[in-house]
């Protein structure tokens, strides 16, 4: 907030959706101002119209289906809606630039990083090749990429996800734009990388004095970076104001509910479960993904996904497996359910080694250990009705179809879905509802252990809170034992009695959640915990019904 000249002023912006969409307008009467040197966060759940507002500013809406119906967008005082496409092209990338969510798809895999930065410079900067290259390398240097010269010559797949996002930022900043639009720039990244990228955006924006319109769904990120906040819900602006005000004393009930849905970082008191029998025990698990590659394609290194991993899960306990991408946590969940064959080790479910079972024994054992998958859309067969999806397991294990279907209807009620849902197909449900169906399917088998692989990471925060609450309820009522795999430490803090922290296939720390969170011993755990966005901000109101 160095000076208060407005860079972007949006007034009464209304964006129309095509006929037959779920609502007539994607955005209705959006007002917002981004001053230079200021970060404005546009927050909302999926379907709130936040990405479309970025599209409207860039004039990149999928017209004519989706078009601006009313309002004005002024950039540095110039009306963006009135100028020609040619003039807009000169502004895009040059004066206004954009950072996308998925750096892998936003970069062209066929061209080197340097070529792609150079492309932007060629279009908008006068100067010879050497000058452009020097400028590009200087930009790479400014986004703190180690060894900028080699990164300049690298292809996008040769650098890591965080570095790719840095390249995207370098590209968007290389012409010193007045306005940067960042559309969920850190959503695809691990927490530790996310924090670095957020710091980087903050730092560069302060140097350049540009205005930033930052689109996100994550209140933790908002707490980390925002000066001002605008909250969207179904295309309507429900609240706006300085970040501290909105975060700590939200006025609108929707904002209050959203903030209350953000899981707090205070773990539950540890349950005394160590006296209960062990229902799931893994010993010495190893899994290496062999190097592929033939005669001509060259050798690649084998990847060790899980290395000498041992753990145990007591009855009625929730064990969290936490780690960043590539830590091997998903491999663990697939090995214990034997969807993936381990190289060595044993997984004992109630004393029987699952990994030593014959195919026939394994099919029988499957009902003891069930799984809830990450992507509720992908894990439900799109051509089956809900009742058949839930009843499928019991029927495969010899239950009479009528009885299994009747029980499936009861289970729908248990996961708080209306019985009329039974005859529908999965595509007719929202993400959270699909995940409830997935949970019902797992419960139908009356398993001893449920393995949940990132069950809420594909869901909006308010839905996430509701599904987590359901899981916690069911666990307490039915005395379930959960192996809960997640990358989100806030979620882990909500649900897990004990956690295992994994790094590169190995356990680096384990213990009761409360004690690990309060006093992390390993450097990696400390790093993870200190990278949680908005860790210094405690959500103010705690609505009991939404949490």
């Amino acid at each position: 907030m160095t000076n208060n000249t407005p860079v972007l002023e949006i007034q009464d912006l209304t964006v129309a959706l095509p006929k037959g969409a779920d609502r007539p307008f994607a955005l209705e009467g959006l007002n917002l101002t981004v001053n230079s040197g200021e970060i404005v966060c546009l927050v909302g759940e999926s379907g709130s119209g936040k990405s479309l507002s970025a599209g409207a500013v860039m004039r990149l809406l999928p017209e004519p289906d989706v078009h601006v119906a009313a309002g004005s967008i002024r950039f540095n005082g110039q009306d963006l809606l009135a100028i020609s496409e040619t003039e807009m092209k000169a502004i895009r990338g040059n004066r206004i630039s954009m950072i996308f969510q998925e750096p892998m798809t936003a970069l062209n895999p066929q061209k080197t990083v340097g070529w792609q930065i150079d492309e932007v410079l060629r279009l908008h900067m006068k100067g010879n090749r050497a000058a452009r290259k020097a400028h590009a390398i200087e930009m790479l240097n400014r986004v703190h990429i180690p060894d900028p010269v080699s990164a300049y010559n690298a292809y996008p797949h040769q650098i890591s996800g965080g570095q790719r996002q840095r390249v995207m930022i370098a590209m968007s900043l290389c012409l010193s734009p007045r306005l940067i639009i960042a559309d969920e720039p850190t959503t695809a990244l691990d927490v530790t990388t996310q924090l670095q990228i957020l710091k980087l955006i903050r730092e560069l924006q302060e140097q350049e004095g540009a205005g930033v319109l930052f689109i996100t769904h994550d209140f933790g990120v908002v707490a980390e970076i925002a000066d001002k906040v605008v909250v969207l819900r179904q295309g309507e602006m429900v609240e706006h104001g300085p970040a501290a005000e909105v975060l700590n004393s939200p006025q609108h009930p929707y904002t209050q509910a959203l903030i209350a849905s953000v899981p707090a970082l205070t773990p539950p008191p540890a349950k005394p479960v160590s006296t209960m029998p062990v229902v799931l025990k893994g010993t010495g698990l190893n899994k290496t993904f062999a190097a592929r590659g033939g005669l001509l394609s060259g050798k690649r290194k084998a990847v060790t996904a899980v290395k000498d991993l041992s753990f145990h899960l007591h009855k009625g306990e929730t064990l969290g497996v936490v780690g960043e991408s590539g830590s091997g946590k998903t491999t663990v969940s697939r090995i214990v359910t034997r969807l993936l064959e381990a190289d060595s080790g044993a997984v004992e479910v109630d004393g029987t080694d699952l990994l030593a079972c014959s195919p026939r024994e394994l099919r029988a054992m499957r009902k003891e250990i069930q799984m809830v998958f990450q992507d509720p859309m992908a894990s439900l067969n799109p051509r089956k009705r809900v009742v058949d999806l839930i009843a499928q397991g019991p029927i495969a294990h010899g239950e009479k179809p009528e009885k299994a279907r009747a029980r499936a209807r009861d289970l729908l009620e248990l996961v708080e879905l209306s019985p009329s849902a039974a005859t529908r197909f999965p595509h007719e449900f929202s993400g959270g509802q699909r995940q409830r169906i997935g949970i019902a399917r797992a419960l139908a088998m009356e398993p001893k252990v449920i393995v949940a692989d990132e069950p809420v990471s594909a869901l909006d925060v308010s839905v996430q809170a509701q599904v987590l609450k359901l899981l916690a309820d069911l666990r307490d009522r039915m005395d379930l034992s959960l192996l809960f795999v997640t990358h989100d430490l806030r979620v882990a803090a909500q649900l897990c009695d004990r956690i295992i922290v994994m790094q590169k296939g190995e356990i680096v720390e384990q213990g009761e959640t409360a004690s690990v969170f309060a006093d992390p011993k390993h450097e990696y755990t400390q790093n993870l915990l200190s990278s949680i966005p908005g860790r210094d901000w405690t959500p103010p109101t705690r609505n009991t019904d939404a949490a």
Partner: protein
Amino acid sequence: MTTLDTDLRPPQPPRLVVFWHRYRRNRAALLGLFLFAIVVLMALTAGLIEPGDPLRRAGPPLTPPFVDMATPLGTDQLGRDILAGIFYGARISLLIGVAATLISIAIGVVIGALSGYFGGWVDDLLMRITEAFQTIPNFVLLLTLVAILGSKIEWITLAIGLVSWTAPARMVRAEFMSLRGREFVDAARNLGVTNTSIIFKEILPNALPPIIVYASVIMALAILLESALAFLGLGDPNYASWGNMIGQGRAVLRTAWYCAAIPGIAIVLTVLSFSLLGEGLNDALNPRQKK
């Protein structure tokens, strides 16, 4: 307050209705459906409109069309009614088309499903067999099979089925390979569902749309293959078929062109109807492929 996650959306219209709406958008596909309906109607009403044996003598030989009302489309060199031949030929063409398609799709689905689902040596073995079939040109293999089996209509149908299963097999294999890694398949495995159930009840319904579309192509191909066989005089002489009619009309092509041209038009329109039908099905079943 936020809306509760458990509130259901209003129910969507049944799949068939949605399907028909999408199909209707393609005008050419509607034309295809119309032509197809005419061919089916001809096959069904052949006995009513032209009672009696279509191979019997109906009038003086080589009557041109629109001359004698008893034989509106004229007669061939043996005095057989061409209109009757077209109507009864529709039966044979459809019968061969449907039966041969079923045979080829059935073989293709089983081989493709096994090799796509299991992979490894099963895949290697089955694909080498498929390739062996693919290296021999379809029609040459068909001629060989008919030469061995004989020209009875059952054998011809079977032979056409046997030469055209390779493409559907490869397609089904590709579909299975992409679908077997999907999470819902893992979910079914995790429930303890057997491999057979996973293949036929989980994956196959999801792989069906492209198979149905391709079936229309095979249907058109089967009709063409039968016509080509008959043209070479290898068709079943006991049935009036369009290919037989062209084959015999060839001899009098310069003096009585209509003997070959009329059944030729019938074949063109029928094959066209299947192609348009297939395109319409593709639009309706894979709506995301276009645009």
